[in-house]
C-alpha cells in the first residue's frame, strides 16, 4: 500500500537526484572549458560532491519510499547512506592529495596565474 509519506520521500529523493545530475553536467562541461589543472580541480569537486554525493542521498530517500522493492528497501537505504558518507570523506581527500603532489612536482602549468606565494615560500625554504 503506497502512502503519502512514500510519495513525499520519493519526490524529495528525485529532486536531489535531479540537482545532482545538473551539477554533473555542469562539472563535465567545466572540465572541458577550464584552462588549467588547478581550475579543473573545482570542476572535479563539483562533479564528485554535487554530482555524486547528492544523487546517492537521493537514491537512499527514493529507496526508503519505494515499497515495490520489497524487503530490500531498507538494505538499499542503509547501503546508499554508507556509500554517500564514504564518498564525502574520500573525494575531498583524494583531490587534495593530487593537487598537493602536482604543485610540489610542478607537473602542471599554471598559465593564467599571476602570483604564487606557496611557490615563493617553498623556493625560500620556509615551507
Amino acid at each position: 500500500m503506497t502512502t503519502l509519506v512514500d510519495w513525499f520521500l520519493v519526490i524529495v529523493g528525485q529532486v536531489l537526484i535531479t540537482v545532482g545530475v545538473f551539477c554533473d553536467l555542469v562539472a563535465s562541461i567545466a572540465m572541458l572549458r577550464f584552462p588549467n589543472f588547478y581550475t579543473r580541480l573545482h570542476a572535479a569537486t563539483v562533479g564528485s560532491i554535487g554530482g555524486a554525493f547528492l544523487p546517492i542521498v537521493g537514491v537512499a530517500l527514493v529507496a526508503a519510499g519505494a515499497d515495490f522493492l520489497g524487503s530490500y528497501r531498507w538494505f538499499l537505504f542503509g547501503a546508499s547512506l554508507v556509500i554517500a558518507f564514504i564518498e564525502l570523506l574520500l573525494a575531498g581527500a583524494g583531490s587534495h592529495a593530487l593537487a598537493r603532489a602536482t604543485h610540489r612536482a610542478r607537473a602542471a602549468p599554471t598559465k593564467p596565474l599571476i602570483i604564487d606565494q606557496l611557490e615563493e615560500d617553498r623556493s625560500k625554504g620556509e615551507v
Partner: protein
Amino acid sequence: MPDLEWWVTTYLTVLMIPYLLAFLLYMVRIVKGPTLSDRVLAVDALGYDLAAFMTILTIILRSPLLIVCGVVLILWIFSLDIYVAKYLEARELGD
C-alpha cells in the same frame, strides 16, 4: 495519482541520458588531458559519478547486490588518487 513503481522507473530512466552525456564529456578530457594530473582528475570525477550511476541502476534494475560494487569502485578511485600523488611526489610507487 499515478503508479509509484511506474513513476520512479520512468523518471530515473530519463535521468540516465544527461548522466551518459556527462560521461562522454569526461571521457573527452581523459583522452585529451595535457598532463597526467588532468587525466587522473577526470578519471576521478568519472569514477565517483559511475558509483552514483550504479546506485541509480540498482533501483531501475531492482538488483540490490549491485550497490556493493559502488563501495568498491569509490575505494579503488581513492587508491588511484593516492598512488598517482605518491608517484608524482617521489617518482616511485613504493610497495
